[in-house]
């Protein structure tokens, strides 16, 4: 059963007097538990597609249905709630909050959830252990290596058990060895049943996924 259905999604940006067509009619269907990589050159529209999938970027036209919900028919705040409950994000530059410890960063999505603090802490510790950082929860981001920061970002994305994990160039700022470790981690999460949609420009990362979607000039090319 498809957990993500996007139909004829178009996205146009107005830059001055020019109109840029980032997506020109994209159809994708992703099954629950799939690991998808979206590849394409810079400017192909892959990051726009991910932001549309993430409920953060209204398409100009088309439909995005996720877990049975037509995403962009939701009011803005309900859309925020949907993101909190069903989606996990891993950003290219990690985007950890510098004044929060690793554990607090992982707990961040739970800050708006009605839940006992002890339970939040336990969930965050478990997420950190899943990414292999069980003993580094009290460190600040600047006390962690790039790979470790990426793992904290992944732990933050999975702490609320999201239906879908969205990752934007998660290995873009990592060396090859650390990149391999991080990709192995995504594979491991997917093996445990996590649906993963990842944008990447690195062809090697495609090997870890079930399927690769290639984007070119805002259209699926293969």
């Amino acid at each position, binding site marked *: 059963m498809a957990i993500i259905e996007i139909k004829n999604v178009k996205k146009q940006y107005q830059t001055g007097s020019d109109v840029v067509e980032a997506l020109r009619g994209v159809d994708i269907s992703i099954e629950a538990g799939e690991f998808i990589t979206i590849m394409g050159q810079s400017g192909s529209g892959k*990051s726009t597609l*991910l*932001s549309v999938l*993430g409920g*953060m*970027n209204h398409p100009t036209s088309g439909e995005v249905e996720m877990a049975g919900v037509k995403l962009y028919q939701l009011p*803005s*705040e309900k859309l*925020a*709630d*949907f*993101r*909190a*409950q069903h*989606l*996990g*994000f891993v*950003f*290219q*530059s990690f*985007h950890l*909050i*510098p*004044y*929060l410890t690793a554990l*607090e960063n992982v*707990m*961040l*999505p*739970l*800050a*708006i959830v009605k839940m006992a*603090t002890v339970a*939040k*802490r336990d969930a*965050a510790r478990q997420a950190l252990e899943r990414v292999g950082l069980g003993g580094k929860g009290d460190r600040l981001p600047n006390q962690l290596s790039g790979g470790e920061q990426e793992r904290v970002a992944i732990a*933050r994305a999975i702490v609320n058990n999201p239906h879908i994990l969205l990752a*934007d*160039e998660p290995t873009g700022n990592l060396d090859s060895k650390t990149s391999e470790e991080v990709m192995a981690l995504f594979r491991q999460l997917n093996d445990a049943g996590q649906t993963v949609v990842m944008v990447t420009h690195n062809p090697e990362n495609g090997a870890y996924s079930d399927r690769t979607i290639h984007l070119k000039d805002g259209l699926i090319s293969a």
Partner: protein
Amino acid sequence: MKLHTISINNLKRRKAKMAFLTIGLMVGIATIVTLVTLTSSMSTDIEQKMDEFGANILITPQSNGLAMNYGGISLGGVTFDQREIKEEDLAKIRTIKNHANISAISPKVIGGIKIGTHDVLLVGVDFKSELKMKQWWQIFGDAPKGENEVLVGSDASNVLDVSSGDTLEMKGETFKVAGVLDQTGSQDDALVFVALPKAQKLLGKEGKITMAEVAALCSGCPIGDMVTQIAEKLHDSKVSAIQQVVEGRLKALDQFKRFSYAIAGVVVFIGSLIVFVTMMGSVNERTTEIGVFRAIGFRKSHIMRIILLEAALVSLLAGVLGYAAGMGVAKVALPFMAESKDAALMWDTTVAFGSIGLAVLLGLLASLYPALHASKMDPTEALRAL
């Protein structure tokens, strides 16, 4: 992890900026507290002085006679053998609507008398109320206790060559000089004071008085209304308010108060601008962070709560510190600005809670737009990466 954890940790991280923001608002609050406390302490001090300085309402007979001064105060048409007020009428003063404001009524009978070879102005007074009203009197000796004791002004004591413990004769009766007044610089220096009933008897004015002074407790009491009320009770008398120097000072203080509030308003406005600019800068610096919050599902209201909670915490601290600093400055400045060196500093809980409340209110108002701006940030724009 709750929303306030984010606010508190961010404040801890941005110590320098938050200190700048706190100081900016604190200076504004401290200025208000200092000015409000100073003006309030100075007002109280001057009002106390007014009470101490005695009469602020004068009752004299209606008269077309020659003018005369008493203690630098115009007594209207009082002359030695002028019409007098009936002593029994004074009781009516206690029946006016604002009788609770009356501190003391001091009736006087005044007349010329011969002591030895000298013509002297004899004043019959009720010593209890007179001494209450004229607290600045310094007496060498004692205040008169009986009918045959007198109090002599300093000039009169020189002319009559008497001092405390001596005796003098008036109309064949011997009086003991209980005390001599220290120089007052007023007409009191030339007078001889004796108990009212005795003076009435000596001057042949039993049951009559020449004038009466009324001291009203002045902290906000309606002197003008009281004058009207007394005049309605005493038809044959002229009732007037004494324009004391201190009243002029109160007016000057009122002007100072208004000027102070204007200054405080400007300082508070600048403090609010500092809060606004700092919070706006902080929000702009945290664009990515706010984008992350929005991306992981924080509602606009959550973002606003984080920003406003930070503003409230900083403002609360600024309010408490501002109140403490303001009271400290007021304490140091009061002796230089008040009339008396021992003027008491007014510790007012309304000022305490008001200043802290004002700081929080200003902090929140000045942060409202930055918070709204933050909450409306587009997560995609904010993150740029996505």
